[in-house]
């Protein structure tokens, strides 16, 4: 009997337990415990899942970078696309994919990636620069300038200052390519303030030259020459800037130095010759004797006469204007009086003769094209004394 009693007690206990478990609070507690276990299990799975995806993404990305650097754009594109399967919002993956697409010439696709990246990080320098280049290619000048400016003031992952300078240089080149000279000058001035290396100063000088801002170009070359006195390119640039500014003695110094350091620089040699002619043929320069000045005037008058007659020849006749016969008459009338003795007797004749010479050079330059040699020198001298 005790055994049967024990058995009954055991059954009752089991029944009690089962019924107790079915009480709402107990059931909810059980659900909570099971939920925690399930949650922990899913957390473990989740870690494995995300780790695997990250590893796969990185693996494809690394392959893509190798192919991108080797300019195998097609493979790179596929690999970056694969990497994006595992992390669709990864910035680097998208940026590199865009670069691969640009390399493949699929600019429309690349543009869509870049625009997304820009929306995500409008202050990213690389993205702004790429967008600027694409806008420039598409002829969207306003957008291109906006993106270039964004890139200049953007955040760069490394070498921030250098990247900003490079971007501004690129912008200036772009502005020059679209003949926005004034804007290019403004950008060049802004750039000059942040330059350090002589090579950069020289590049800015070149840009100023292209923007026809010779004053700033000369300043940039001079700054560059402070650090590299013997740099032939900087000397040539400075010489040409000084030449354009009409500062011929300075131009002669720079060009002489440039030619001495680089005798193969034919352009500078030619410019030096012209500079020296200008300096030699200018009758109004200081510190020359009256006789010497008179001789220069007589020579210049003869040179102008030759130019006039050559410009009036049949092949150029079509291009000649109605002013040329008048100039020829005047020249012919004045010619008997333009001798050294007459000039000595009548110093006012010097100015009259040179005025006619300058007018002839200007006129023939307009009708027969830019002269060379002595005629060019006379033309430059005329510009030098314009308004005096």
């Amino acid at each position: 009997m005790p055994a049967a009693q024990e058995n009954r007690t055991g059954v009752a206990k089991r029944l009690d337990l089962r019924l107790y478990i079915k009480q709402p609070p107990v059931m909810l507690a059980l659900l909570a415990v099971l939920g925690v276990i399930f949650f922990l299990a899913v957390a473990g799975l989740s870690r494995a899942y995300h780790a695997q995806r990250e590893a796969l993404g990185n693996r494809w990305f690394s392959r893509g970078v190798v192919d991108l650097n080797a300019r195998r754009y097609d493979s790179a594109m596929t690999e970056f696309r694969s990497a994006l399967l595992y992390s669709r919002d990864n910035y680097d993956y998208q940026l590199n994919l865009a670069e691969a697409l640009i390399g493949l010439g699929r600019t429309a696709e690349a543009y869509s990636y870049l625009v997304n990246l820009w929306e995500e990080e409008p202050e990213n320098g690389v993205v702004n620069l790429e967008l600027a280049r694409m806008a420039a290619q598409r002829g969207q000048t306003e957008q291109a300038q906006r993106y270039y400016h964004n890139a200049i003031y953007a955040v760069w992952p490394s070498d921030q200052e250098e990247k900003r300078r490079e971007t501004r240089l690129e912008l200036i080149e772009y502005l020059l390519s679209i003949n926005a000279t004034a804007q290019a000058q403004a950008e060049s001035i802004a750039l000059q303030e942040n330059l350090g290396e002589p090579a950069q100063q020289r590049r800015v000088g070149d840009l100023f030259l292209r923007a026809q801002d010779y004053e700033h170009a000369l300043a940039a070359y001079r700054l560059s020459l402070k650090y590299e006195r013997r740099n032939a390119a900087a000397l040539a640039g400075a010489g040409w800037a000084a030449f354009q500014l009409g500062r011929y003695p300075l131009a002669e110094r720079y060009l002489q130095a440039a030619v001495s350091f680089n005798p193969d620089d034919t352009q500078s040699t030619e410019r030096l010759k012209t500079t020296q002619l200008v300096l030699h043929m200018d009758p109004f320069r200081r510190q020359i004797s009256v006789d010497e000045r008179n001789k220069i005037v007589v020579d210049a008058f003869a040179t102008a006469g030759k130019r006039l007659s050559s410009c009036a020849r049949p092949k150029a006749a079509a291009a000649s204007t109605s002013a040329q016969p008048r100039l020829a008459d005047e020249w012919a009338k004045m010619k008997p009086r333009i001798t050294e003795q007459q000039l000595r007797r009548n110093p006012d004749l010097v100015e009259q003769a040179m005025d006619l010479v300058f007018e002839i050079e200007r006129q023939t330059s307009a009708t027969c094209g830019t002269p060379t040699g002595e005629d060019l020198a006379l033309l430059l001298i005329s510009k030098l004394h314009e308004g005096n």
Partner: protein
Amino acid sequence: MDLNSQDGVTDVVANNVVNGAMNSVTNNDQSVAGRTIYGRSPKALLKSVFREERFFLILSVFIGIYSGLAVVCFRFAIDWCRLYLLGTGAVLSPTRLLLAPTLTGLVIAVLVIHVFPLARGSGVNQTKAALYIYNGYIPFRTAIGKFITAALAIGSGHSLGPEDPSLQIGACIASMMGRQMRLSRDRMRLIAPVGAAAGLAAAFNAPISAVLFVIEEVIGRWTAGILGSVVLSAVSSVVVMRLFLGSESLFRIPAVQLERPSELIAYSILGIVGGLASVVFSMGIATFRPKFKALPLWTQYLQPAMAGLLIGIIAWLGAPQVMGAGYEAMDEAMHGRFTWQFLGVLAGLKIVATLFSFVSGTPGGMFAPTLFIGAMLGAAVGGAEHVVLPHLSGSAGTYALVGMGVLFAGFLRAPMTSVFMVLEVSGNYSIILPVIVANTIAYVISRGLQPIAIFDVLTRQDGLELPSTEEQREEGILHIEDAMRAVDGPVLDAQQTLQQALQAAQASTAEEFLVRLSSSGWNSVTKQQLRALVDQGKGGTSLGSQLPVMQIPSLHPDQPLEMALRYVDRWPLVPVVSRANVRQLEGVITQRDVLERYREYGES
């Protein structure tokens, strides 16, 4: 556990156990047993806390958490299947493209035919069947089957989506929990939709859309009792899902805007095209599904494999985007990375691929393919419109987004959900006008050309008669005003003498008369009763003093006709009064009027 004492024996025993425990406490420590909390005993307090409606709400949170965890696992399973079956790269090898979906199709067919027969078919319909037919019962085996077979199918590239299986997995989990908790029948019926909302919310990462969809498509009506549970489960499942998969939405939506109202015309065109595409898609399924089902049994083993092979060939020929759910391709379409011509081709191919995947009996849902077709079609239409009208401001992303809503409205016939889904996934309210316009047009076209919604078509093909939520929505409701009639006799006043009342009644042919009581309310009296009272010599007394105390309830013309049924058998004449002035009689209604009106309605 039956809190409404449905299972009386168990409850009595359980209560005894609890009482016993309580008694033992009392014996051991009188002071403890004598304690009350807020004037109630601990047992009473416990019972009040765990009243079934409250318990149901708490349970909804657990359903949400469990469903969220299950859906997260399901997503992992799909991705792992894809990795191991199709490979890790974006460009897939031709061998895998052709073999993976084909061979997996064979495995799926065996599993579906021999192990998990309920895994095939629509999860939405199975949840509805649980609600309306099986008292909330869905075998848990279905969830396991759906999990395995759908993960294999979607992972191997079959053109199906994970949302419908997620919905069903959620419903199965809820059903199992409800059974274990031994909820009452009413609660059990509702528990499957609660789980369905949790599963769908986690799959879409969009709780509002999930709640709306379940209310709109599964339950079919708004009831306060269920809404709280559905919302709680949806929110808790989304919270869990976001913990593991991040809070980013399914799609990265580019900036969306509508600059000129005239552009709505462009979106209307998208609505028309989308509506027609919806009809083609649903008619294709309606036509081919029974034909495939009618083929000999041995072909059932081959059908998923053949569908897989077809998809593999499409992918191999240059459109791998049609494989699987296709979210990556949708994302790319939204960001303008395809030409509009290619987008149009993708939309067409996806219709074909999904059609054959689905009708072959491969488990998986149609939500994602619907969104895919809509996105591609939208972006294609937008692209084509841009060619003709370059000044249009909408981007490819805008049109793709609106297109998704259009197909959702046209194909799944869930117009409310379609609007909110687009708003929820885009997070941009400014797109609402194009969405409403285009979705409405698509819905109207689809409704006009294909009167029966796709879910109802599938239900009827499966031999079930589930209520059509669309028909319910559009069903005409009879009101009191449709059955009431004018008062055909005088309205007596309670202050009149019985003699005066009898005289007024005798002047009329009617037998029954309404009596307006002096303060408020109504009563009635017959000519015969009046005559009897007067014969008893009470002709000088007031009519009101002789009437029974109980007043006749009044009705209003706008109330549903079924309201009248509660009263017309107890009172031969029920007054219908104005809501603005309850003393103003609009008419009367009798049992005969109500039945007559229902008969006419049934005949029409």
